[in-house]
């Protein structure tokens, strides 16, 4: 046990270093790739010794905020996915289980449809929709007193209701459906510093809080009853982590649109390869999510991609699913929490 205890930290450091190296590489590539390709030295020059104003403009004003948003969104989705899976004790849960995505989609759709509303109102409506869906599910589950399963069911109910309203809106206003749909599919193509300046400061404290609570979230895995007896304010932690992670997710997806799969699979990749201890799952899941989303976004805007701007969420699934399927195939017996 002592050996394992000592090795644990070392393992975390090794994996973190490895993943941050990969992420650093991906960040670099992300700044290079695009319709105007840049070499690594050009990127570094643009960042630190600006000489070429065109390159500097592209890197600083377009690619940097886009890269930042994609990786932060991926990180938030990965961490939240791990947290929500722990809270609901359900390996099938994703950050959207509480109706966040459907609520945000409905909010965004309303913003698109209300006349005279500027385009920048969309994220705010999406954020409001997402968070209110979560709070509504929480309220319903509280009334039901059925624990995590009750909460999942409440989330499904709220989510389904929001989706139904969204469908009705889409069919009623089919001439304006395109804007809504393109938001729904998720994209980082319109990233700006303004967006990054909202998303990064809002989601960073939330993610730090969740990471700090990783050890207590492990105890919560065994249920509120046992966690309380072990000295955790279990009920408060449960609610607080849920609201905090839903908040961060709502902030992110209200700008990027609905990006699926990352939040479900990022944490599971860590569980399958490394450990199901939340002190591994949360940070490593975050890095995995960031890496997945950033690579997908790179692919979306790379000149290799013949389809033009396709939804980044679709690409994420396209490259994520085969890898995940491989993991399931090789280590399926370890699948679970």
């Amino acid at each position, binding site marked *: *046990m002592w050996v394992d*205890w000592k090795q644990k930290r070392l393992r975390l450091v090794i994996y973190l270093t490895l993943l941050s190296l990969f992420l650093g590489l991906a960040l670099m590539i992300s700044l290079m790739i695009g319709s105007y390709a840049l070499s690594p030295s050009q990127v570094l020059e643009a960042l630190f010794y600006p000489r070429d104003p065109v390159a500097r403009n592209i890197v600083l004003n377009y690619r940097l905020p886009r890269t930042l948003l994609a990786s932060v969104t991926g990180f938030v989705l990965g961490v939240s996915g791990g947290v929500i899976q722990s809270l609901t*004790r359900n390996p099938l849960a994703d950050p959207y289980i509480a109706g966040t995505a459907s609520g945000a989609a409905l909010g965004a759709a309303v913003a698109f449809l209300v006349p005279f509303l500027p385009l920048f109102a969309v994220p705010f409506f999406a954020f409001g929709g997402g968070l209110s869906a979560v709070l509504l599910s929480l309220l319903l589950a509280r009334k039901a007193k059925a624990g995590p399963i009750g909460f999942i069911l409440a989330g499904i109910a709220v989510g389904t209701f929001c989706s139904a309203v969204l469908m009705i809106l889409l069919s009623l206003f089919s001439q304006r459906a395109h804007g809504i749909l393109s938001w729904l599919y998720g994209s980082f193509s319109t990233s700006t510093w303004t967006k990054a300046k909202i998303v990064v400061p809002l989601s960073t404290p939330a993610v730090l809080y969740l990471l700090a609570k990783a*050890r207590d979230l492990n105890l919560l895995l*065994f249920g509120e009853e046992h966690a309380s*007896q072990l000295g955790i*304010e279990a009920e408060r932690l449960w609610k607080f982590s849920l609201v905090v992670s839903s908040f961060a997710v709502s902030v992110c997806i209200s700008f990027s649109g609905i990006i699926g799969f990352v939040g479900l699979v990022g944490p599971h990749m860590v569980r399958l390869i490394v450990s*199901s201890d939340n*002190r591994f799952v949360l940070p490593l899941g975050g890095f995995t999510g960031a890496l997945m989303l950033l690579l997908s976004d790179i692919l979306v805007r790379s000149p290799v991609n013949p389809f033009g701007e396709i939804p980044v969420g679709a690409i994420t699934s396209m490259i994520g699913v085969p890898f995940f399927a491989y993991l399931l195939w090789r280590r399926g017996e370890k699948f*679970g929490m």
Partner: protein
Amino acid sequence: MVCSIVVNGVSVRFDSARILDGVEFKVEKGEILGILGPNGSGKTTLLRCIARSVKPVSGRIAVFGRPIEEYTNEEYSKMVSAMLPNWPNGFSMKAYEIVLMGCRNRSKGLWWEGREEMKTAEEALRLLGALDLSDRDFDTLSSGEQRKILIAKSLAQRTEVILLDEPTAYLDLKHKFEVMNLMRSLAKLGKTILVSLHELELASYCDKLLILKGGKIVAAGRPRKVLSEKLLEKVYGIKAYVKWDESLNYPLIIPKNLGGRTVCSEKLISNRSS
């Protein structure tokens, strides 16, 4: 003498079923209280009340003179530890990591368990004779081995009061005695232990017994006084001889007959549908 636990008229109801009905007793510091009774008599519920996972509809419980609902979770986890049977499986954690969870109540670190905590966990595992299981995946252990790990987890909490729900279930004969002996030595150190048991013989290790039936206390007192032929018939509905081995102070319980064997009705075993 300070009373560790005072239970005052505690009643619990699940829907309309009365699980506990006006239960009252006191346990002094350094005592082992054995809780006996047939299935469904309320043993586990009583322990869960004291562990604060079940709220009684009426009655009060105090631990060291303070009502239990006044403690915060952290304070309470330093006073009372519980080994309750419904610990979930399926999270692929090592046995020692489960024991380390018991150390959370006094942990200084936010993220990692410190050396002190590891020493506590190691000591708890050693007391249970389960050190060799420490690196095994908890889910792959047998029921008896899991029991030992969970008792070790409770010990790792280093509390004054220890609640154990059927700690001897699933254990082999040798470990049953070892667990009871361990309780005795913990009690000698001043720990208060409440333990529910099904083995009437092992109840002789306790200082006092509490016999529950249908949520009510039907008898209480020293094992020599309480464990009688009359009681067995009254509580369990079995006729048996109870003989005490004087040198071991250990009871021998021998049934007078093996009970009217239940005869399966023809209907239950017949393949023909009617």
